[in-house]
């Protein structure tokens, strides 16, 4: 399932669904990378409220997305991670160092203003 990307002012909002495949994430990386330049966005919010699991691949890919977007001139904020997902992630030994996080979309948008 493709991840929809919305443009709000100079910020892009990507909303991830629960059944996220590796391919969806890779396309998201490519799409965001293109669109931040196309729309001259200075920030991207990735909303993962619906996501019910994070493993090493999705963690690494999100981290890569943030790094790539940084190089393309945009800040990334990950918002809405569920408690159970966060707990399983840290038990796996995974974190998102150097990536901004916020509780929800609203706070993510405020952070990028």
């Amino acid at each position: 399932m493709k991840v929809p990307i919305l443009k709000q002012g100079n910020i892009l909002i990507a909303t991830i669904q629960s059944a996220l495949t590796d391919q969806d994430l890779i396309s998201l990386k490519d799409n965001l990378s293109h669109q931040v330049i196309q729309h001259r966005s200075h920030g991207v919010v990735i909303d993962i409220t619906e996501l019910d699991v994070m493993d090493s691949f999705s963690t690494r890919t999100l981290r890569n997305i943030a790094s790539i977007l940084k190089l393309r001139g945009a800040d990334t904020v990950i918002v809405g991670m569920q408690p159970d997902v966060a707990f399983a992630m840290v038990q796996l030994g995974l974190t998102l160092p150097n990536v901004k996080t916020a509780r929800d979309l609203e706070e993510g948008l405020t952070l990028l203003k």
Partner: protein
Amino acid sequence: MEKDTESEPTSSYAYNLMKEMKLDEEEILHRKAWLEFEEPDVNRLLELNDMAQGYATEVIESLYDHFLKFDDTKKFFEDPQVLNRVKNLQKKYFLRLTNGNYDDQYIQERIKIGSVHASIGLDVKWYLGAYGFYLRAVGKRIFKAFKSNPEKALESYFSLEKLVYMDIGLAIDTYIYQREATIKIQQEAIRELSTPVLQLREELLILPIIGAIDSQRARQLTEQLLHAIRDKRAKVVVIDITGVPTVDSRVANHLVQTVDASRLMGATLIITGLSAEVAQTLVTIGVDLAKINTVGDLQGGIEEAERILGYHVTKSLEDDSK
């Protein structure tokens, strides 16, 4: 066999209890073997049944007279209707001893008695005393009836005694089992109560941890906290560990995990109350404390939290407040 018109159907509760206590056929046979309760015993008890029918009412009456002499047991029989009902049940229970057929059903009935006594709060000593009273009352009558054959009297009495010991074993095991179950439930309740997540103000939670932390509690704590962060929309959480006696590497790693997980959700964690000894231990065992935001005491932690949240707390002067 049994005239079942009057006997109470054993509840599925007693049946479940029997299963939970692992009183299966093998275990029951095992218990009987231990007591040397064998086929001749069953027959001897059956032989006593006719006689027992004769003296049942008398024995029960004297037993209840005895009960009423003690305040601890008297209090259960203040209502005459209850007393009457219990006497009838007791008589049935009494006659059941000489009814033969000491099977599954019998075990269930005995477990039920233990469970009922435990639930009304009748202590084991009263139950044991009452059984002793029974044995004396019946023993006297058996020896009188078999006056010409004391050997038979003794054999019959021993058979009864074996069965009574089996009953007592079952009843006490039920007591213990139920008490342990209660303790387990209470322990869980205490565990939950011992880690209250308190909301100090909007977006600010406080979690004072008191008592030792093992892996399971640490896991529950983290789980509870992360859910509270989402449900109460917290931005900052202050965890106070002043009340935690020892922090070893496992507990420390759990703290680090909790810090990481909270950050992933967009919240900040502040840890307070880390004693000098604990801090030294953690450095010695090489826990990565760089990630942990620590503040000396709870007050300092709350002040730091308020600063992050953008609160500016000042003391109002009486005259020109507002």
